[in-house]
């Protein structure tokens, strides 16, 4: 026995078996106890509950939802809400972050100061505090009767009312897809023909592509328009309530604003870091070739900075998606809140936690996979820029 313990190989095997074994035992014991405890409360384990109707409602959904719908449908709604809030938050945060980040790298001292103040303030206040703050601000807006009005939009304590096109959901989705294509396609087209064509021609191709796609989007909307209604439906006061238009609930706007502002401060730092990582030599070389500052920026600085930023940006995006779980603090029914409500109402604790983990794992892994592909596609060959 003693000699066995002194044997390196025997020791290694023993250590591994002990470690993995005790972890497995711990998890197993936890699950067993939980199942027994739950069974005592009359809850049978298994995923049958997914097909039962929930009996409760969600306050925000892109898909039709009633209290009669089954659990699985609510989980789907939760995931879509999370992804929707996440992508709105990501886009806004990226826009804010890019502007602030560019200000921070600008050659103008005042702009730099402004950017730095922004980052220093909003980065150092917890996100959830910012969510609470914006939520309080929005819910303290005037009632619908005394709503602020601006460009056809109404600001009220019950949410932001914006004009909405009078079209069905499918057509709307189609139109949105076309607009996305309008942005992505020209970039894709321009990509293949980088420098081999004069800049005017490339620009013309891109603009033409964008225009065509936008036209398609408008066409879709026009064709799908509900009969006997104007294309745009403006919100208006009717009695004590607001009718018409699209209501963006305060929970959603508070979260989106907070994520945009807080995330923007982080992305600004990433943008700044990306530009800082560009070698002085590259810029000097480009300037010495007589390129204009604008073309130095688009042809040399931006591509290099993007490559430096992307891996860190990916992490930040994953973090921001996870931050949507703060929805539960103000009552936005994101994925996590659906899980929490499920546990409250149905008692299917283990299953719901399992679904939660699987959901976030899937979201994380797929985001990571997407970014890895982009990273690989744009990575510089060799490492001539290092050191």
């Amino acid at each position, binding site marked *: 026995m003693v*000699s066995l313990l*002194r*044997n*390196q*190989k*025997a*020791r290694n095997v023993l250590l591994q078996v002990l470690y993995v074994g005790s972890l497995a035992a711990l998890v197993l014991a936890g699950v067993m106890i939980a199942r027994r405890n739950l069974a005592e409360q009359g809850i049978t384990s298994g995923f049958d509950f997914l097909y039962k109707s929930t009996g409760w409602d969600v306050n925000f959904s892109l898909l039709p939802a009633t209290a009669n719908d089954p659990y699985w449908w609510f989980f789907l709604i939760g995931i879509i809400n999370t992804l929707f809030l996440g992508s709105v938050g990501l886009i806004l945060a990226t826009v804010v972050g890019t502007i602030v980040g560019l200000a921070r790298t600008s050659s103008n001292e005042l702009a730099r100061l402004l950017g730095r103040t922004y980052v220093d303030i909003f980065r150092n206040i917890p996100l959830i505090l910012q969510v609470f703050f914006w939520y309080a601000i929005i819910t303290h807006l005037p009632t619908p009767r005394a709503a602020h009005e601006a460009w056809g939009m109404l600001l009220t304590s019950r949410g932001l009312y914006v004009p909405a096109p009078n079209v069905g959901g499918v057509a709307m989705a189609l139109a949105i897809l076309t607009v996305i294509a309008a942005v992505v396609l020209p970039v894709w087209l321009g990509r293949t023909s980088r420098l081999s064509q004069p800049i005017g021609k490339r620009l013309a191709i891109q603009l033409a592509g964008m225009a065509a796609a936008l036209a398609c989007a408008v066409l879709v909307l026009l064709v799908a328009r509900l009969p006997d209604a104007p294309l745009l439906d403006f919100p208006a006061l009717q009695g004590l309530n607001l009718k018409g238009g699209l209501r963006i609930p305060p929970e959603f706007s508070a979260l989106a604003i907070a994520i945009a502002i807080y995330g923007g401060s982080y992305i600004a730092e990433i943008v700044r870091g990306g530009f800082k990582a560009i070698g002085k030599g590259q810029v000097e070389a480009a300037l010495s070739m007589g390129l204009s500052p604008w073309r130095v920026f688009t042809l040399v600085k931006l591509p290099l900075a993007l490559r430096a930023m992307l891996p860190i940006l990916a992490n930040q995006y994953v973090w921001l998606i996870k931050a949507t779980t703060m929805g539960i603090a103000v009552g936005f029914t994101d994925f996590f809140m659906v899980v929490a409500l499920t546990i409250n109402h149905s008692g299917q604790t283990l299953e719901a936690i399992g679904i939660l983990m699987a959901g976030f794992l899937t979201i994380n892994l797929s985001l990571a996979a997407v970014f890895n592909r982009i990273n690989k596609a744009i990575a510089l060959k060799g490492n001539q820029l290092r050191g």
Partner: protein
Amino acid sequence: MISGNATESGGPAVRIENLDKYYGSFHALRKVNLSVERGERIVICGPSGSGKSTMIRCINRLEQHNGGRITVLGTELNDDVGNIDEIRREVGMVFQHFNLFPHMTVLENCMIAPMIVRKRPRTEAEATARRYLEKVRIPEQAMKFPGQLSGGQQQRVAIARALCMQPQIMLFDEPTSALDPEMIAEVLDVMVTLASEGMTMICVTHEMGFARRVADRVIFMDGGEIVEEAPPEEFFTSCRNERTRQFLSQVLGH
């Protein structure tokens, strides 16, 4: 399996029999046999990738061998953890890149192992450390950090650090390869002194002058095998093997 006393006298210092070592599918050492007597000084040379470093790293188990037997001071190196500890205590090693601990002063570098491995009291460890620093001729640098020293000085500290454990065998793994030419001499001087005091030394080095002066035997390795093994005068004047001759003409230069 209870190991023998590592300090017992009699028998060779190191005995290597049919040593095999693989890195994946690469056969780094092929059935190497070598025996080193106590007090003997061996110089091993050979082109890079010939397995010479791998071989001496097997002697204190920085590399695990895949076949054959290694016996150090009468104790066999195997999976027995106690044997490994025992052998490492008795075998000092000097590395190409010094590997001094950068977060400790020179003195602490020399004291740490005797204190925590040999459990010597602090005062004794410090006295020993200062004595060996004196011996490698840098007592005045004791309170500095390794980063503040030149390469040659760092390597001498590394030698002192190894000696502070009062080992019976010293391994040198290309101790002068990372040094600027003007610093090589100061390190070799220390090594010559050490040799003259009867330390068992196994040196991987390309310093042929050093080999000629102190080595009892010079060994030439190539392709994971010992190709030539002879006393220096014979090695440098009448080597039998073609590869050895080629190598010597490259090293001894034009």
